[in-house]
């Protein structure tokens, strides 16, 4: 059985890798590999679950392999299988299988055929890692893949403005979810003093023992998990992202945003339920969020006059109910509800172009002129208000913008004084001093020694903020992010007994990606004058390979699991103590803003309407 569990993760991985190797022109081979690998995966899943059902539905936990370990720290891949995984597996593999067959014809001759299937398989890999994950680290690995593949699929039509803008919007919400998960890992590390597996969460005695000792850590960790779930499942107040994600080809919207991806938030709640089961406050909050979402989203769904937005909001409101079901401990009901909702919404999206035929026919044969409904003044006024609020999607989009991103932008804009010269004159000597101090840290008074990491981390944060709002110099912007990593590294090294090997692990990935990205930018800068970040440049139209290379560099710099920096990032957090709130805040914020600044850089340079006009360009609002 263990072999099969590993196989179920390896099949999508090999399918994805294989699909990368096929030449672009060869549609049959591309769809064949996708169809084949997902098909085999579906059959193996069905067989496996069948056998598992009749052999006692045992829960499996496999510690696959340790990626890195030092004293008191172990980063390992852990796989887990229980009935939650089983349901998500069956629904996911059946839907993905059907969608690959569907897309084989649907995507035929489309520009980006290969890119579509690559991303689809990449998504599927992330989905499987997530649902099979046995600890937070593995979950986070899958989670990050889901995030990036979602970004790429929403921005599938990368030469248009709106898909890219909306992909960035969704990515920024996902980033909030990421931080929830990262801090959860950090807290649980301090709570359990080891990298906890989900299997251990089922141990009620152990959980309640730890929670009893550190009640507030437990509460805080649960809320962070909830934050991740809420962001990923488009619950209140993030519901606005789901309809905006409907920018890719219809089947990808169907599979990702109305069914699989959006139910991952529910998955993580199901998975961690034993952890917050005995915290009534958390359960009440989950129910409240689910309820608010269900009500608001169902009103939004009622007033939508665009078909995909209608399906999106219906799906969100049902997930709200699923949240409630989970919090009430109705796991089986939640799972059934998930499966039904996923199938229903996928299908509704897939047939969405047909509504024209169907509803026009219905209107033609069954039309009844609407009657004026007269309500009393106040009731009419209330009804109108409800209608308008629902139509404006409760203003959640601008609410989140106003409270989350606008302050970040404002803070960044205050840093107008930082330019290349300032950076050279102030930050380089400062950093050198920091390094010198590091060597002589034993000579430094203890008070100062405790303050310095915070100062260093804050400096790093300032640099990454600056990078986020930069409008002109692309390469400088890139270097700012790079510097941010160095400052964080310095701060952490100061902070704790930090193994140099840990530091090498962290910085090697960053430095490598930093250099590659820098050279891509330099190469591009020689060909294209006037590279500014004020508008989208759309250079992937001309430079497809450099675009890919730069994307990989960005991912590397953002600590995506393609370089050792991924493990390093987790390590960095594990060296921050529970009581170091400021340090934690600065490092975490840097992490979020770096990711956003990087994806912004990539999007502005390589995506959006092409800046050159010797070929047709899509209008802004198309």
């Amino acid at each position: 059985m263990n072999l099969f569990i590993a196989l179920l993760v390896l099949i999508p991985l090999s399918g994805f890798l294989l699909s990368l190797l096929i030449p672009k022109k060869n549609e049959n081979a591309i769809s064949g590999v996708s169809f084949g690998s997902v098909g085999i995966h579906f059959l193996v899943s069905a067989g496996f679950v069948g056998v598992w059902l009749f052999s006692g539905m045992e829960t499996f936990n496999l510690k696959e392999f340790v990626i890195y370990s030092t004293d008191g720290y172990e980063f390992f891949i852990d796989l887990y299988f229980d009935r939650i995984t089983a349901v998500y597996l069956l629904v996911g593999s059946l839907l993905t299988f059907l969608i690959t067959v569907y897309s084989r014809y649907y995507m035929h001759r489309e520009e980006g055929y290969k890119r579509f299937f690559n991303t689809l398989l990449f998504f599927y890999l992330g989905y499987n890692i997530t649902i099979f994950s046995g600890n937070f680290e593995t979950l986070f690995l899958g989670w990050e893949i889901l995030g990036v593949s979602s970004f790429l699929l929403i921005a599938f039509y990368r030469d248009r403005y709106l898909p890219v803008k909306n992909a960035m919007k969704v990515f920024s919400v996902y980033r909030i979810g990421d931080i929830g998960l990262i801090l959860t890992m950090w807290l649980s590390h301090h709570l359990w003093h080891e990298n906890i597996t989900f299997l251990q969460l089922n141990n009620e005695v152990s959980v309640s023992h730890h929670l009893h000792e550190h009640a507030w850590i437990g509460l805080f960790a649960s809320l962070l998990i909830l934050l991740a779930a809420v962001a990923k499942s488009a619950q209140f107040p993030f519901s606005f992202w789901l309809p905006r994600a409907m920018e890719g080809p219809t089947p990808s919207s169907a599979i990702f945003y109305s069914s699989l991806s959006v139910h991952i938030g529910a998955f993580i709640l199901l998975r961690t339920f034993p952890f917050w089961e005995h915290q009534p406050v958390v359960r009440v909050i989950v129910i409240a969020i689910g309820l608010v979402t269900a009500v608001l989203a169902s009103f939004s769904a009622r007033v939508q006059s665009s078909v995909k937005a209608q399906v999106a909001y219906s799906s969100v409101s049902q997930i709200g109910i699923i949240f409630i079901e989970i919090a009430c401990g109705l796991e089986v009901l939640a799972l059934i509800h998930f499966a039904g909702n996923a199938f229903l919404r996928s299908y509704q999206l897939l047939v969405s172009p047909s509504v024209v035929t169907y509803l026009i026919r219905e209107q033609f044969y069954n039309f009844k002129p609407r009657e004026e409904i007269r309500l009393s003044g106040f009731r009419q006024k209330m009804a109108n208000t409800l209608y308008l609020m629902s139509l404006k999607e409760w203003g959640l989009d601008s609410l989140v913008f106003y409270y989350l991103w606008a302050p970040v932008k404002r803070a960044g804009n205050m840093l107008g004084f930082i330019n290349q010269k300032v950076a050279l004159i102030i930050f380089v000597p400062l950093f050198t001093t920091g390094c010198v101090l590091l060597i002589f840290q034993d000579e430094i008074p203890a008070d100062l020694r405790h303050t310095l990491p915070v100062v260093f981390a804050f400096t790093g944060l300032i640099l990454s903020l600056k990078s986020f709002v930069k409008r002109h110099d692309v390469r400088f912007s890139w270097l700012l992010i790079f510097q941010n990593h160095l400052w964080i590294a310095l701060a952490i090294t100061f902070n704790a007994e930090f193994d140099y090997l840990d530091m090498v692990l962290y910085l090697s990935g960053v430095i490598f990606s930093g250099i590659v990205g820098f050279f891509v930018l330099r190469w591009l800068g020689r060909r294209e004058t006037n590279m500014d970040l004020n508008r989208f440049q759309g250079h992937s139209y001309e430079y497809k390979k450099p675009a890919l290379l730069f994307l990989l560099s960005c991912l590397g710099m953002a600590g995506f699991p393609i370089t050792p920096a991924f493990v390093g990032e987790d390590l960095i957090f594990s060296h921050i103590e529970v009581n170091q709130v400021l340090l934690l805040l600065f490092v975490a914020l840097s992490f979020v803003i770096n990711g956003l600044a990087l994806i912004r850089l990539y999007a502005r340079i390589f995506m959006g309407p092409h800046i050159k006009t010797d070929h047709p360009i899509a209008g802004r609002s198309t």
Partner: protein
Amino acid sequence: MHDSKGFDEHHLLHNLKHYLPAQAPLKDFVHHNTLHEFQDQKFHDGLAMASKMLGYKVYLSLNEYRNLYNAGKINPEILKQTISRIKGPDQVEGYLKKLFQPGHNQQLQKRIGALRAHWKDQYHFDLNGRVHVNVFRILNSYLDQGVALWPFPIHHMTLLEAIRHLEKNSFSGFFRTDRARVLLHDQKTTIKELLKILVGEESLFEQYVFDQQFEHPGWSGLVAVIEEQPQTLLDQRKISLHDLILLELMLEIDTMDHRFGANWKPLAHTLKQRPTALFSDFEKTELDDLYAIWQEAYEWSYYDDVIKGLLTERELPDAKNGISFQAFFCIDDREISLREYIENLDPNCQTFGTPGHFAIDTYYQPQHGKFHTKICPLPVTPKHLICEESDQGKHKKDVHFNKRAHNLFSGWIIAQTVGFWSAFKLFINVFKPSISPASASSFRHMDQFSSLTVVNADPKNKIDGLQVGYSVPEMIDRVETVLKSTGLVTNFAPLIYVIGHGASSTNNTHFAAYDCGACSGRPGSVNARVFSIMANHPDVRSGLAARGISIPEKSKFLGGLHDTTCDDFHFYDVEHLSTELQSIHEKNTVVFSRALNLNAKERSRRFDLVNTKRDAADVHKRVRLRSVSLFEPRPEYNHATNTLCVIGRRELTQKLCLDRRSFLNSYDPTIDPEGRYLLGILNAAAPVCGGINLEYYFSRVDNHKLGAGSKLPHNVMGLIGVANGIEGDLRPGLPQQMIEIHDPLRLLIVVEQKPEVVLKTIRLVAATYEWFKHEWIHLVVIDPETGRVFRFLDEKFEPYQTVSSGIASVSDYAAMIESTAENLPVFTLKNQLV
């Protein structure tokens, strides 16, 4: 152009409507010239203007032309002739060099948008981003035809009144600042007043509104169309472009006030440099000439082969044993190959082409229908109504479109029950597609076993002011028109088929574009059937005889429908035929079904995923599946290959491979020496075929701005249009999947008639003449007596000499079809096709 010193609202609105896309809501999709507003200029001048003003790409790229040249699709001799004609004989060498100089594609710099771009430059603020969301939301909700469960609260007021009412009677709204609110509620607020606040300088007002509306041409164009033809929405709305502009201007003021308070000034006050006026003159550049030369040379390289082909001697079948049957088809380019196969399988038959409404100018109301729908060309305003009487039940329902699935509680139940049914249905649909309530099928337009009220019993019998059915003299007129214009006035066969056409597709928002254009985007089944009933009517027969057309009493007309997607026929009223005719019909259906198989096979060469080499019946099965597959964005290729329109006797085109690229209108010059019927034919052919052709042309050369882009991400908005995602503008024009195999050539109309008759005829109607005069359609005539060819150029006919040395003759047509998916060259067919 208008002197822009003083601002004139009326002039602005009139002018703007002229330039906005004129596409009706989806259900009434009809092809038209996308750049109709430039048709008062010569083709190349209009295109250059459109490109400079609005930033459209209007030709292929220089590289594409060069590749066509290298592939032999552009004839070097014709290229030289073209340069000589456009630039003068001494320029040939110089221009030949320039045409092949690498690089130098046109930069699509546009004047539109330049003025309003200053908002972003000066305030670093995305005004469009803030305002569009609400404008689109309001428009879509107000116009929605039935997507939303909770419709817009007010539907009987105009858009502005409704917004005023809502703002007053709710605790929420779209406006957030006082000044804008006051302006909104003041009934006397004018566009000019608002522009004074926003722009400041009167001479820029018109340009500002153009900039603003062309940021979302899709919505603005639709609003303008609905304002002109409110009946295009079944659930009507009172909307006008004026109201939209007023509303948008007020929202802009509101947004600026909200963001900047008192800290912003009218745009003109901070303008450092005035942008180029939208309509100011422009210099034609050398690049414009290069594109024009390439395009003309490309077109005439193909036309030249066609003309050569039409003149080439061929061995035509001869109906020695009498004519077996006759069949009328629509002039549609999709019917040409089918006709060829039918003629080959039964050499004794005759086929004719005539616009697919068969002169039946009427509305149609099906049983249970709450509305009537136009089934004749769009410009015609019918005075008649044909009603269907049927005992068929209503159409089937599909729970997936049930609106309750979007409610909170019923959605909860449905998700957990129907949800699993969805998985099953999806599985079936992916592996075994079949027709469903979600499909649009041409055969559903009319119930096969219904009866139609064709004959008017009492002139007072009217519904909504329309006369139900036709009187006998009216019927005689219509039948006579078709027979005389096509030249079928003697030698009637025992059975004369009248075959309309329609299309079937699933999951296709543009389904109306696939049906018959002459029937306003509906299938032609009703028309074909009505025409046959009329032509079989004894009183009509005697009336016709009095006008010189005597049809033997035993000859009968039989209506039918050809579904061009699945290549199937349905016939109507077969049971009314005598048993003798029924058995003849039986025999003919065998011919038809073989021809349909072969036609499907020929079409399949364009579908990469169907193996054309298989047996015809087998290929046909696969082709049929396309019309019912959820995942098939190309159920058929529609008019994607249209380039020609031949108006003349069938002998002119028979046994000549035109590769489904030609509209064929039967016309016999010998019975119409005065050009009386020709006028009718050209009045219809120029706008209909020309409109189809140019819509394909422009959607092909700039699919981003003039077409609808890829249909794969399309989202249905209010049942009236499609947009990308949920925040986008509507996308008029044709999606990429419809135009990808189209060669952008203008339409060439070939008329078999004397040049002087044709010249006199086309000058009679100014609207028709404009098409030819300004070269948006090419025109060539073949003199039926001398066989000489004349080309219409600069308002006169000049003799035309073909350049082509001769065209190939092909004996194995089937092999030819199986060998390539590309357009076929013109060639004659040596043997029987089958």
